[in-house]
């Protein structure tokens, strides 16, 4: 599961920017009430729910810690 921010939305499809900064991905927002600027949890290509900014921050911190640990091993 990944968490990202909705940067555009039209007809229940949206573009989401994920934490890893990859190019934007199209996500099905049909099952959630997500607006531009909201953080969403995404499974595959489907948004499952909207996270509060605090939840999103917690998830981002967790993701960053994992990536940092992996980089330390490489160094």
């Amino acid at each position, binding site marked *: 599961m990944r968490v990202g921010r909705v940067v555009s939305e039209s007809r229940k499809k949206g573009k989401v920017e994920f934490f890893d900064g990859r190019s934007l991905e199209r996500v099905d927002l049909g099952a959630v009430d997500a607006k531009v600027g909201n953080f969403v949890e995404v499974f595959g290509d489907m948004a*499952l729910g909207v996270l509060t900014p605090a939840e999103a921050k917690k998830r981002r911190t967790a993701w960053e810690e994992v990536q940092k640990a992996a980089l330390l091993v490489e160094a």
Partner: protein
Amino acid sequence: MPNSLGYCGPDDRGTILRHLQESKGGEDLVSTLQGFEAAYPFLKLIARETGRKAFDYSVPEAYWIGNSLLDVVKVPEFYRFSHTDLRGKDPAQVRRVFRAVGDGARPHHTFYVMSTFAAPTVKDGQNLLTESSKKVAELVDNCRISWGKVRKVGKDKLAVEYRPVRIEDAKLDLAQPVIRKVGYDRLVRPFGKVREGDFVSIHWGYACDVLSPRQVGNIERYTRADIRSANEMLRKKKQ
């Protein structure tokens, strides 16, 4: 290509593919694999509890396909791990999972996927019991490791007979066999000689490995156990 959709880990899929094609390992590969938020902690757990190293063949085999190492990992240790090592997991959800399935909890990828989506992962979120349950079940089917028998070998696709996971009346089950086309890479060693009748493992529409008869037996056994556990969760959640 492994992680070609970018759903599972770092955007460094070229490194993994190169190592697979060249059949070798290395520090850059290890580093990339350690960036997988869920998979790597699970490998460390199984390794620690069975006296092995995280990338010994039997350890990832246990996590992805299933083998007897899963039975060695004690449930209380798996419970502790789920609270401390799986970053970002909601402690209340972890408690609910273990309370519902007890001894049925195993550090198996399919169990992790099914148990995660048996309940909402965010407040009021979609899961296997909400109106989007069929779509969530399709995603669960893609995300778990499935297996199938090769019926036709194409240039870059295999036609595979497999049993998808479906949800009906709030219960997961393996549906009747269907033929599905999945991608594969002929340059990755086991697939150079893949032929009709072989069994392969599948993840997000891509064939990962050619399975031995022992592995086919294991993946079916542990998948069925995971489905039973997930159904126990779903039953209790519905009550």
